[in-house]
């Protein structure tokens, strides 16, 4: 346990040391946030509610999205796949303890740093300047915190699965590139999934991409917050099992290759 905590701290410190990248990232988030805010203000000029969302919900979506962007589409997205391809990953299997937990601890350290330096400041400033809909009770805020951390965990688990493709093919990047547009839309990063037509929306709500963005948004606005967190937890468990299965299949393969 101590070892995993040390990894978590190391990940946090490593990510926090990129000051220039942090400034550039915050600028980008602020810019896109302002443009998206203007778009939603213009859209809601003649309407109060569309697909169950009002302007406060839409603005909350915008700023949770900007806050979580670097957590989900982390700059180190391909680090694991590159380590697998170069063979460095073998060292990971030789270290004591559980490789999946070790990777999770280090990754979570980095995403917690992003949450602390990007998500929370972005959301706080936006909430001070704009009429966002955020929890006002301590319990609600704690639930939002849990929702954000769970989003970070699921983002690691999905990155792990995508990166694991490198065990089987060196063309993992082209495969992902073809898949990416679909992930981009169905995770809600283009527009809130609430605007999708009924059947598509129902389908998407059952995908493991919901915990990344839409679940934290729902926790923030208080629309079925408990349900949203429960969905996140359920996906953490499922993806945990999937990750372990992939890792055990892949390690066997690695042994064959490295023989």
């Amino acid at each position: 346990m101590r070892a995993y905590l040390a990894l978590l701290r190391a990940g946090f410190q490593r990510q926090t040391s990129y000051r220039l990248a942090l400034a550039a990232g915050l600028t980008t988030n602020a810019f896109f946030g302002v443009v998206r805010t203007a778009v939603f203000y213009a859209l809601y000029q003649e309407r109060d509610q569309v697909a169950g969302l009002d302007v406060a919900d839409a603005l909350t979506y915008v700023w949770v999205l900007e806050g979580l962007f670097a957590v989900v589409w982390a700059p180190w997205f391909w680090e694991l796949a590159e380590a697998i391809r170069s063979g460095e990953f073998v060292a990971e299997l030789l270290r004591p303890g559980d490789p999946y937990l070790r990777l999770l601890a280090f990754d979570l350290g980095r995403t917690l740093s992003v949450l602390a330096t990007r998500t929370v400041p972005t959301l706080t400033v936006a909430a001070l300047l704009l009429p966002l809909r955020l929890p006002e009770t301590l319990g609600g805020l704690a639930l939002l915190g849990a929702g954000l951390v769970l989003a970070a965990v699921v983002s690691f688990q999905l990155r792990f699965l995508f990166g694991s493709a490198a065990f089987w093919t060196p063309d993992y990047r082209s495969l992902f590139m073809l898949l990416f547009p679909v992930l981009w839309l169905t995770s809600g990063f283009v527009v809130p999934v609430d605007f999708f037509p009924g059947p598509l929306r129902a389908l998407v709500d059952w995908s493991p991409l919901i915990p990344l963005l839409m679940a934290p948004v729902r926790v923030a606005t208080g629309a079925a917050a408990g349900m949203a967190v429960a969905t996140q937890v359920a996906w953490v468990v499922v993806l945990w099992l999937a990750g372990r299965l992939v890792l055990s299949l892949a390690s066997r393969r690695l042994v064959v290759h490295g023989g």
Partner: protein
Amino acid sequence: MAEHTRVYLRLAAASVRSTARRPAYLAARTVAAALIVAIEVAGVVLMLDRFGSIGGWRPPEVLLLFGLAFTAQGLALVFGDTLEADKMSELVRRGTFDQVLTRPASPLGWVVASYVDTRFLGRMLAGAATVVWAADRAGVAWTPGRAALAALAVACAAAIIFGVLLAAAGFTFVTVQGSEAVNVLIFGGQYLASYPMQIYGSPLRFMFVWVVPIGLAIYVPALGVLGRQGPPGLPGWLAWLAAPVAGAFVALGGLAWRAGIRHYVGTGS
């Protein structure tokens, strides 16, 4: 100069041939670049259809802006992708750029021609398809004048984006690391120019009409294509100003690139 052009064309051809060596990979990258445009447009269609209009513009009229902006960005990135911070930084750090400076060709011509990336043709073509589709749904009656305006919008906006990339590359020579913040202008500018300019507050509008005139280059010609009146302060004849403004912008980018090279000291690697 004519002789140099031949050299650049051969370099560009070699670059295209080298990526075509793995046709499946090239196809995947090109299709993916087109798909991202299709998905973004699909998402916006879903949203706009729920609302009906934005700033008095109907969904197909907005999509025309999306198409123009994506086409321009794709065109700029076919030639200018290497000028982005991460790639330029690698050229500098690895010392590749030291060798470029010793060659009897213009460094800019060499960098642009050697790294032409046909993948962005996918983005460009998907953008152009969006323009045609949106114009049809918006009931645009194409005339030579309107087609010229659309082409003008794409050419000018692409030139402006290329100018931003040039200036950013000049900056990377000095800082070595470069800054991803430039992406705000390239990707953020495209995103912003995809919606009618009247929805933005005056600081944003001023910035993207007069300082980094991507908004001027896309929005004002689009008014002409759609046969719409612009808001006060942005009359339709401004479209013809887009060309000289874009030209001036590229010239400024070129100056920044040159200033960057003058301060280039390499990294000793």
